[in-house]
Structure formats: structure tokens, C-alpha cells
């Protein structure tokens, strides 16, 4: 009995160095933010006023909130889907033992390693409307110049381009690993049976790499909900709110308008979206993913 108790407490001892910070900086704040979302507070006044569901009802009648929700959705779809498709396409291109593929991999992966703030500054220069590289290239293709970051119709596209530039090479490396692990005898057998490349891709490769696709789509979705650096450097949510995601709106209402209650309710919405998506993906994963 005593031995058992000792074993138990020793295990607790081993988990504490990680558990204490997790409780203080993650689990605690998670509970705290739910509480804050029911209050009205400005960081300064000594009391936090309990207002019940007011913040939520305000949020749900606020057109800015719906706009941000829409931007978040567009940003999510616009970053996750092209990253997955692009990453897979690049991995397929690279899979057939190409000469110097190591160099290609290095070049394609390098954006992921570099600080988002620094590369976003460089991209702001590329998107400069008057003398920027982006408009020069459009000119070569005979397209008239675009205002990019200054144009509410294009700013999100510009931010997405940078986001994709950063993540496609990263996704590619995941797919390269998955493709390398494909059973070659299965693909050969299919070839002997007269299957063409598209058939093989659709009915063998795609199902077999589905765990990777599944994993990437979850991670990329969470990443898209967290995107901040490139938006802060390039557009600060503008012009006219066209790049203000929910996370950016949360940041602005907390640290620019000092509206803690409203900000917390936005954060709770973000967390709920994550919980919902993980739940859905968990169920989907069980049905659709082949291990």
C-alpha cells in the first residue's frame, strides 16, 4: 500500500514541472477568459462588472463581428485548401527521384523557418502599388496594376499569398514522407493491371496518404485561426476591416479599445470554433481516414 502511494506520488512529481506552468498559463487562463466574457471591464477600474450574456448578445448583433467571422472563414479556406493541394502537388513533382531534389527541398522549405515579421515587411515592398514587383509582373502579363494592401478587395489575397508562400513547402515535406512510405508493390500491381497514373493516384495514393491530409488540415486550420504577425505588419486588419480576422478583432478590442469583456467573448467564440472543428474532424477521421 505504502509502495503504491510512493509510486503514485513519484509520478506526480515527474509531471509537476510541466503541469504547473500549464495550469498557470493555459488551463487557468482558459477558465478565466470564460469568466471575463461575462463581465464588463477596462483593465483599470478596480471592479469587474458582471453583465451576464450581454457581451455575447452584443457580439451577435454586431455587423463587425459577422464581417470578421467571414474574413476568418475566407482566410481559413484560402490558406488551408491551397496549402494542402499545393503541398501535395509539389511532393508528387518531387517524388520521382529527381536530381538535386535536396536543393529544391531546401529552397521550398526555407520560408517556413524565417520570421514572419521580417518576410512580411519584404512582401509589403513587393506589393507596393507604384513600383512593386507584383505589379511589374502583372504588367508583363498585360494586367493593369492592383492596389494590393491598400485595396479592400485585394488585401486579403495579398496576405494569403504570403501565408501560402510560408506554408506550402512545409506541407510538401509532410507529403514527401507519406509518399515515400507508400507500398510500391501495390502501385506496381496496379500498373500491371493496366491502371493509368490518374487511377493509381485516385484509388491508391490518395486514400493511403489520407492520415497526412487529415493531420495537415487540422494543424493548418488551427494555424489559420492564430494568424496574426503577417496581418499586423501588412494591413493591421484594414483596409476597411477587409483583413480583420476574429483573432485580430480580439486583439484590437482587448489591447487597443481596452474592452476586456467584449474581447473575451470573441476569444471564447474562437475557442468554441476550435472545439467544434476538432470534434467534427475526430468523427470524420474515424470514418474517412485509412490507417
Amino acid at each position: 500500500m505504502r509502495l503504491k502511494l510512493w509510486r503514485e506520488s513519484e509520478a506526480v512529481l515527474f509531471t509537476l514541472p510541466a503541469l504547473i506552468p500549464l495550469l498557470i498559463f493555459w488551463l487557468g487562463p482558459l477558465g478565466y477568459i470564460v469568466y471575463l466574457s461575462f463581465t464588463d471591464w477596462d483593465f483599470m477600474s478596480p471592479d469587474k462588472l458582471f453583465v451576464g450574456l450581454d457581451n455575447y448578445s452584443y457580439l451577435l448583433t454586431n455587423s463587425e463581428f459577422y464581417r470578421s467571422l467571414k474574413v476568418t472563414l475566407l482566410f481559413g479556406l484560402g490558406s488551408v485548401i491551397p496549402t494542402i493541394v499545393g503541398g501535395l502537388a509539389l511532393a508528387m513533382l518531387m517524388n520521382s527521384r529527381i536530381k538535386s531534389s535536396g536543393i529544391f527541398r531546401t529552397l521550398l522549405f526555407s520560408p517556413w523557418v524565417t520570421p514572419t515579421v521580417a518576410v512580411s515587411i519584404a512582401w509589403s515592398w513587393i506589393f507596393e502599388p507604384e513600383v512593386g514587383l507584383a505589379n511589374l509582373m502583372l504588367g508583363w502579363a498585360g494586367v493593369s496594376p492592383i492596389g494590393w494592401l491598400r485595396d479592400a478587395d485585394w488585401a486579403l489575397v495579398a496576405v494569403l499569398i504570403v501565408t501560402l508562400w510560408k506554408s506550402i513547402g512545409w506541407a510538401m515535406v509532410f507529403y514527401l514522407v507519406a509518399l515515400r512510405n507508400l507500398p510500391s508493390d501495390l502501385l506496381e500491381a496496379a500498373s500491371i493491371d493496366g491502371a493509368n497514373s490518374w487511377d493509381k493516384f485516385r484509388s491508391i495514393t490518395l486514400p493511403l496518404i489520407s492520415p497526412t491530409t487529415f493531420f495537415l488540415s487540422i494543424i493548418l486550420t488551427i494555424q489559420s485561426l492564430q494568424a496574426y504577425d503577417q496581418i499586423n505588419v501588412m494591413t493591421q486588419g484594414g483596409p476597411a476591416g477587409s483583413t480583420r480576422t476574429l483573432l485580430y478583432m480580439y486583439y484590437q478590442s482587448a489591447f487597443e479599445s481596452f474592452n476586456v469583456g467584449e474581447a473575451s467573448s470573441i476569444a471564447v467564440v474562437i475557442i468554441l470554433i476550435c472545439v467544434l472543428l476538432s470534434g467534427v474532424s475526430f468523427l470524420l477521421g474515424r470514418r474517412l481516414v485509412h490507417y
Partner: protein
Amino acid sequence: MIRYLLLAVIALGTAFPFYWMVISGFKTNDEIWQFPPTFWPETFLWSNYVDAWHAAPFARYILNSTGVALAICLFQIVNSSMMAYALTHMKFRLKGVLTSLILVGYMIPSTAVYLPSYLVLSELNLLDSYTGLIVSNCVSVFSIFLIRQAFMQVSHELVEAGQLDGASHFRILWTIITPLVRSSFAVMVLITFIEQYNNYFWPMLITKDPDLQLVSAGLRSFFVEGGAYGLAWPQILAASAFTIAPLLILFLFTQKTIMQSVNITAGVNKN
């Protein structure tokens, strides 16, 4: 052959923004505002790089970031390996709960709790200090994952053999298991270092003192204030270039290890 060309074009296109950043940093102010832009500067103005380096304390910023990132790595090595050891080689009641807690932690974006974490740090009087920055980042669910993944590969018999010899769990962890999974620790340290060196949002929120700023925040304030929002583009691009340089060099030397992280993380979803 077509594949090869296509890949070459895409790979060079991906690297091009880096080239553009470095090369534009050398241009004169007149040349950078010229349209169409030049792909090779007429004269190389090395002084842009020197000016930018002195216009803001970039050496200090880079040192700040490196130091903070290394301290965070050190803490994460210790607590991730202890937690991972408990989760893989010890028996205790809360094991299942802890494992699922960490799985859920992976799903919920930490940025969403920045506001309450900020308040917690301010309660602890740790705002505007490296202690606050390091302590609040000293655990990463991702690192625990990575190390747990590696520890699961280590046979349990090895641990039992150690116990029969009378070794304590600490001893088994540091002298038997850790050396076996060195490469996973290398992956963890590199990924954590890169992530922390590049970290921007959280450090920017909690450190207001300019001397304490990390490199991303320092660069950003140079972009906004010192660079007068885009009036001194050559210097701004030069500054961006030397912010990026340490990481690109690190990446060139350690890319095999960094790419390995994919092998390990990809395994996460199978458990």
C-alpha cells in the same frame, strides 16, 4: 525534364523574395523608387546595411531573442522529458487524464488565451521582464508530444532492468533513455528555438521596454518609427535581411534534423 524545369522555376520563385530583400537593401533611395525596378543594383550601397544596423540596437535584439529562446529550450528539455517519461514508463492514476489534456491542448490555440495570460503575468508582477517571457513559454504541448513519441519507442524492459538494478526513475531517465533518443531532443530544441526566435505577438504584448524587445518586435518598431513607415525602404529591407540571416544559416546547417520533425509529428496523429 518538364518536371525538373517546373520544380526549378517554383523553387527559385519561392526563394526570390529573399533575393529581392537582400538586393533592394543595397539600392539608393532614388533607385528603389524607380519603375520598372532594377534586378541588379546600379551601385552597391553597403552603407545602407551599416546605417540600418546602427539605427536601432539590432545586435542587442538578436542577442535578446537568442538568449530567451535558449533559456526556453532548456526548460522545455527538462519538463518535456519528465512529463513524457511519466506518461510512457510510469503507472499512475491520472495518466489517462493527463494524456487527453495534452491532446486537447494541441487543439486549442494559445493565442486565444493571451488576454487572461497577460493578466496572470501582471498579477505575478512579471510583465516587462524576461522571467515572465521565459516562464510563460517554458512548457510546450508540442514538445511534450515530440518527446513522448520518442519515449514510446524505447522498450519498457530497459526501464524495468534499470529498476531491478536499483536505479531511480531520475537516473533511468537521464542515463538510459535520454541518450537513446538524442536525435528527438535535437529536433525539439531546433524547432523550439526557431519558433521562439521568431515569436512576435506574445513578447510584443508583455515587453514594453525597448531594451527588452526581441528581434521581431524591434524590427517592426524600426519599420514603423525609425523607418518612418516606408520612407527609408533600403534600410528597412537591409534590417529585415539581417534579422532573417541567422535563421537561414541555422537552417542550412541543420536542415536534416529540422525535416525530421515532420517524421515525428506525422506520427502523432496515429495515436
